[in-house]
């Protein structure tokens, strides 16, 4: 049979095999229960015996011993019934009205204030409860705790495992789900490079070209790094290592050259191959046909807030202790009324996948627990991101060898998705979850390069909470300025670079010479601090936040063979080979008197 390589869900023969039963076979045993009535007495399920005469209705009576080990419940095992279930048929006297004496009182008696029921899940409750949940969430000062409380359960998400889309024509999708306005082919005016020192350019250019020569064109670069591993590693891994080395060396040489003139570079913290995890809501996407929670299906929503999770490796990301200055203000036309494309279709129609995942936020590094902000400052403000271009080959392979020839689109997607996901994560570390809108913009700069082709971009995140509880659809836009493709050199022949373009080096210098500084009168961490609540207060807050049940986990928990009760399973079924034939039938045996129980034990 012919089968396409790498086709994820494709199967030629379907696995579905319906079980065909004959009607005659099925009806054979119906209505024949009375035949065996003498031998099998089916009393009521586990009616508790009354142990003493003054048995009160609220009291629990002891249950029969069932020989069933703890943790191995199934629907067949008789459960203890409450006492009201036993004598529920007894008539009860109900006084509908208060007696005359009780009706009037000198002091007013108010009804007891009952707290609202525990919130099971913020989607299944009313808006008021949800708002309460958001408020309670903001009270948690520790970011770790907040992360755990949010991501307890899996949700149906549109998962992005790389900062671009596998399919063609994904730019509009990336723009819509991050609500980004794209300024194509232009960087902001502060990045124009008229005033760059020429001596620095000359110095840096030679360093850059050297590192490109060594990493990209020398024999060392091809399968010389890892002699044993390279035999079994494919081309992409090799290219990834080469490109990561190149990006690190670019960062290293730029900061070396610029350090004397710009001391703020000492403050930079570099993450190599950082794994960014992030999630957010895309605002009001059209409802996908196939993948939908039952709740949404029953409500028949036309549009939904699609949860999006992101988990991808950023080759190089740099952070500092204070933010970059904002490029445009919030009142600017660009951030208030720029256009963002509207999607008439769900991205599933273009081939993206919906899976169930835990929504977790981690911007490439772990937060410092109980960080004392008075003593020092954590480096958790964005400064720079770097991406390579080697994964275009991988993308081609995933598409069965098809080349869409849309390299620029991929670069734009990387700029938008990669930086939004990272900035969203950093905002979470400043206390702003996707349910709490940021109060100041996050700005990062970035570049996408393979040594020869260079793209520079600047991203300003003005808003990140798009859930329709908090967002009406018209708010500040995120903005991405991206330069056109620039070539550092036209070609490489006989060990010489031909047609070197100085503009690229100047842009690079301009980016690294941006000085991060804090604005006065801005509280950068409103919701963050030390947890000073008492245990009681924490418990009260936690009751509102609620222990949410996880459907997937529940299913896991109740099956014998899965990890939770692995040991128990072994103890039962492997150590006692006849456990299955003896003990598993105990739940199905007839109800017996205690004396009979002993008599029949050999049988059941």
């Amino acid at each position: 049979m012919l089968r396409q390589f790498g086709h994820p869900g494709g199967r030629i023969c379907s696995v579905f095999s319906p079980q065909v039963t004959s009607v005659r076979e099925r009806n054979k045993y119906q209505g024949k229960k009375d035949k065996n009535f003498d031998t099998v007495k089916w009393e009521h399920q586990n009616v508790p015996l009354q142990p003493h005469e003054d048995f009160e209705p609220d009291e629990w009576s002891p249950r029969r011993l069932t020989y069933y080990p703890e943790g191995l419940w199934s629907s067949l095992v008789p459960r203890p019934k409450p006492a009201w279930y036993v004598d529920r048929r007894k008539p009860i006297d109900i006084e509908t009205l208060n007696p005359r004496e009780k009706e009037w009182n000198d002091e007013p008696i108010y009804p007891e204030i009952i707290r609202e029921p525990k919130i099971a899940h913020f989607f299944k409750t009313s808006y008021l409860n949800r708002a309460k949940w958001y408020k309670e969430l903001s009270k948690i000062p520790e970011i770790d705790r907040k992360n755990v409380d949010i991501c307890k359960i899996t949700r149906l998400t549109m998962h992005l495992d790389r900062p671009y889309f596998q399919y063609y024509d994904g730019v509009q999708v990336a723009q819509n789900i991050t609500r980004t306005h794209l300024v194509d082919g232009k960087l902001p005016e502060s990045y124009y490079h008229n005033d760059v020192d020429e001596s620095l350019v000359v110095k840096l250019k030679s360093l850059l070209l050297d590192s490109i020569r060594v990493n990209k064109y020398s024999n060392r670069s091809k399968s010389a790094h890892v002699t044993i591993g390279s035999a079994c590693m494919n081309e992409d891994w090799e290219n990834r290592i080469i490109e990561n080395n190149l990006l690190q060396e670019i960062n290293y040489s730029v900061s070396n050259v610029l350090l004397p003139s710009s001391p703020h570079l000492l403050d930079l913290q570099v993450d190599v191959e950082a794994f960014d995890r992030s999630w957010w809501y895309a605002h009001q996407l059209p409802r996908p046909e196939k993948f939908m929670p039952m709740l949404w299906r029953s409500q028949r929503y036309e549009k939904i807030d699609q949860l999006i999770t992101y988990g991808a490796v950023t080759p190089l990301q740099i952070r500092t202790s204070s933010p970059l200055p904002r490029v445009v203000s919030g009142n600017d036309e660009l951030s208030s009324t720029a256009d963002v494309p509207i999607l008439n279709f769900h991205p599933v129609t273009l081939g993206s996948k919906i899976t169930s995942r835990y929504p977790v936020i981690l911007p490439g590094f772990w937060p410092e627990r109980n960080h004392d902000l008075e003593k020092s400052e954590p480096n958790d403000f964005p400064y720079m991101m770097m991406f390579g271009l080697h994964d275009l080959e991988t993308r081609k392979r995933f598409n069965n060898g098809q080349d869409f020839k849309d390299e620029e689109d991929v670069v734009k997607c990387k700029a938008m998705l990669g930086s939004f996901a990272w900035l969203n994560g950093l905002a979470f570390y400043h206390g702003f979850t996707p349910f709490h809108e940021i109060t100041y913009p996050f700005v990062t700069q970035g570049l996408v390069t393979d040594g020869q082709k260079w793209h520079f971009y600047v991203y300003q995140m003005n808003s990140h909470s798009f859930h329709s509880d908090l967002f009406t659809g018209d708010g500040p836009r995120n903005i991405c300025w991206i330069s056109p493709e620039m070539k550092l050199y036209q070609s490489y022949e006989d060990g010489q670079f031909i047609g070197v373009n100085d503009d690229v080096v100047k842009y690079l210098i301009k980016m690294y010479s941006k000085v991060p500084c804090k604005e006065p009168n801005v509280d950068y961490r409103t919701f963050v601090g030390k947890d000073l609540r008492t245990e009681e207060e924490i418990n009260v807050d936690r009751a509102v936040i609620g222990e949410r049940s996880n459907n997937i986990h529940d299913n896991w928990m109740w099956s014998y063979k899965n990890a939770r009760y692995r040991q128990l399973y072994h103890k039962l079924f492997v150590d006692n080979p006849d456990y299955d034939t003896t003990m598993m039938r105990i739940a199905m045996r007839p109800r017996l008197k205690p004396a009979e129980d002993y008599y029949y034990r050999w049988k059941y």
Partner: protein
Amino acid sequence: MSFRYYPMYLKGNPQLRVYLPNFWMKLLKPKENDPKNLVTFKVPVQMTDWDIRNYLEKIYNVPVVGVRSQVKCGDIKPAQGAKYLIKDDDYRLAYISLPKDKEFNWPNLFPDKKIEEEETEFKKFKKAMEIEQKKGKRQNWSRHRVPSWFGV
């Protein structure tokens, strides 16, 4: 299954002038909100993405950018008047994306005007047929009370 090569010529066989694949592709109507440059086809399961691409590019000169395809399970339904299930054959759905500036619009093969024309034509034809039938039923007075074999 398509023959990917020209069938071997044996002496006495007719010589094939034109080589046609024995695949078929059925164009499906796009859904209401689908993007304009996305076209959907129902194709046989054995067809690969590259077969689909070549089919469209080489035979119909369609500018294809990307092809995605999925194998779908055929319908499972109860047999009519019987108590067992039957299953339709599996098929493959191919999603073809055209370049961004290209659009595919579903051709309206049956516009209202055409339907009206056809209906009036049909009515006319029906009327004529009725007249013809009546003619057959009408008694021939020149052969009144003569048996039918008389004219043979």
